[in-house]
């Protein structure tokens, strides 16, 4: 029993130190990220970017590493900094032979940023959504008095009574049934904010993987079955209300394909993006009167694509990123910590307990053996029983520095000491 008690304490120490130790080390030895913010300049016909240099100073440069001052940098991006350029009288009348105006930019600009964390939150959150009135006579959207869920039918829960609005639920469920919807819903995608100019409603994937458009028009259900193939492996749908785009939003698939869902006929168009995973990579989409720019980002690289409005790639470029823990700090980290328990994942909305082993297990094992030798010497001088030393060493072999520190801190018990003096 005493044996079990002692090693329960060691296991708790391993658990505790493997959370605290590596995270403390990272906080101390991590260097600033060199991740750039990338734009495409139609004026220069190349990518331009800003990032922090080694001293932490913000620098502006193009993809050929020529540095510029902030004002010159802004002149290369007339569609992004048009307000400044108008103020300075530097706004060009035409870009790449195409006439541009303030109004023209306002009507065609669009920006959307989606992080894996946002997608993850959509996956885990409580599935209750507000259904706005899409054909409201008022200019501002009104928050409804109910939220809906789609389980074995579509149900509206009235906020005033916390009970199901039977008549409304029946009307919408019947309309969905009539359109061929198979309950329950697998994905319910929409923009639940009332801070938008108008409302597209929701795009709902039913249990047979068919995508439906569900909206409320003048209190009545508007249900449309889309042309999207049920063979598509839907992962996430991001809807964004904008008059400046010809699509409702983006469809992300599990395999990493990205499609735009077109407004005029619910067809989909594939974006020519490669090496993208929605649960790993961030996605930034922007458009101006001339181009569409997509930037995908993760901890290892930034990949930028400049396209025409017909999704034809004009330019593509990738930047490798330096890890925040690099060089000697990384080598030492991989050696002294055989594994780590992480309570956070930058791509997850919820906390997790994640086990990650050292990326160099051989050096971690070598270090553990070194610790065992050190431990045996110390304990031998303390006249600890050999059986106890052997068991402790076994824990150090697997728990590395976490077991070593834990065992040293817990010290020795009376029973550990040899009865006969050596």
């Amino acid at each position: 029993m005493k044996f079990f008690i002692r090693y329960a304490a060691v296991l708790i120490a391993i658990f505790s130190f493997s959370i605290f130790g590596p995270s403390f080390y990272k906080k101390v030895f991590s260097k600033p990220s060199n991740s750039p913010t990338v734009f495409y300049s139609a004026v220069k016909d190349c990518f331009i970017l800003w990032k922090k240099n080694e001293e932490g100073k913000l620098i502006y440069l193009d993809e050929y590493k020529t540095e510029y001052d902030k004002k010159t940098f802004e002149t290369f991006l007339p569609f992004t900094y048009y307000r400044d350029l108008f103020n300075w009288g530097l706004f060009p009348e035409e870009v790449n032979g195409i006439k541009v105006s303030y109004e023209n930019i306002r009507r065609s600009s669009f920006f959307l940023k989606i992080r894996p964390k946002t997608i993850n939150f959509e996956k885990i959150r409580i599935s209750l959504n507000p259904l706005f009135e899409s054909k409201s006579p008022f200019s501002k959207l009104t928050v409804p008095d109910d939220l809906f869920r789609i389980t074995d039918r579509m149900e509206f829960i009235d906020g005033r009574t916390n009970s199901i609005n039977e008549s409304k639920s029946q009307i919408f469920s019947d309309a969905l049934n009539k359109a061929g919807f198979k309950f329950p819903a697998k994905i319910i995608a929409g923009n639940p904010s009332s801070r938008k100019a108008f409302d597209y409603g929701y795009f709902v994937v039913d249990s047979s993987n068919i995508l439906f458009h569900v909206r409320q028009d003048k209190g009545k259900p508007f249900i449309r079955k889309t042309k999207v193939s049920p063979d598509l492996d839907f992962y996430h749908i991001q809807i964004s209300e904008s008059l400046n785009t010809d699509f409702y939003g983006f469809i992300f698939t599990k395999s990493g394909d990205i499609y735009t869902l077109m407004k005029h006929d619910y067809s989909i168009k594939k974006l020519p993006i490669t090496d993208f995973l929605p649960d790993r990579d961030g996605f930034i989409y922007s458009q101006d009167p001339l181009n569409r720019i997509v930037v995908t980002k993760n901890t290892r690289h930034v990949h930028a694509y400049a396209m025409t409005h017909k999704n034809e790639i004009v330019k593509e470029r990738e930047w490798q990123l330096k890890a925040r823990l690099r060089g000697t700090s990384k080598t030492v980290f991989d050696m002294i910590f055989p594994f780590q328990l992480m309570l956070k994942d930058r791509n997850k909305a919820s906390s997790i307990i994640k086990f990650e082993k050292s990326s160099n297990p051989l050096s971690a094992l070598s270090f553990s053996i070194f610790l065992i030798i050190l431990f045996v010497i110390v304990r031998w001088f303390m006249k600890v029983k050999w059986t106890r030393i052997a068991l402790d060493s076994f824990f150090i072999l697997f728990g590395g520095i976490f077991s070593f520190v834990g065992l040293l801190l817990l010290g020795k018990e009376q029973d550990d000491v040899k009865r006969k003096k050596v």
Partner: protein
Amino acid sequence: MILQIYKKEFYKLKWLLAGLFIVHLGYITQFIVDTNSIFNLHSPIAIWTNVVFKNAFYFDSFKFLFTITAVMIGFAQFLPEVQKRRFRIACHLPMNEMLMTCYTMSFGILVFLLFSIVDIFIVIFIGQKYFPIEITNGSLEIMLYWLLGGILTFISSALITIEPSWYRRFVLFIIIIQVVSLSSIVKVYGSELTFLPFLFLLLLFIPFSIFPALRFRRGAGI
């Protein structure tokens, strides 16, 4: 023998239990009044969306209450035993000392469970009146994490109190603090965490709690 130990523990803790009863009653009253007034002042949909999209915990105050209850029971149960070395006398009772320690601790755990389960029941009962079932289910899950965290906190405060050596108390504190703060990492409804690591830690903590008790009985470090 277990009943006698429970009786002894009850007499020892009666004033603390009365105090905790009043504090919990106050918290519950405050919770009911607050929830009612928030729903009177604001649109229910605004409150629901705040919960769904911003992960607002409408029962957040209970997290602190669970922690403080666990710590107080732990200290109140073992501090008098340690101060006057009564625990060594208890260890000489005609029963296994490990079993005696477990029984003593189980009383503290049961008291903590009694208070927190009543709190959870009331939060869920009141929640059902105001919130859809998805939200109350989510609340129950989060409060269960806090409950497990509370048990770990109770055991931790008990074993730090029993530990006779100040050096070892410091070491135990370093080892335990990270584990005890685990329950506070649950920040969203529908968290991807599972109860398994908590239950595993609980399994380790039960024998771990006997560790300082054995040392105390032996008089180590005094």
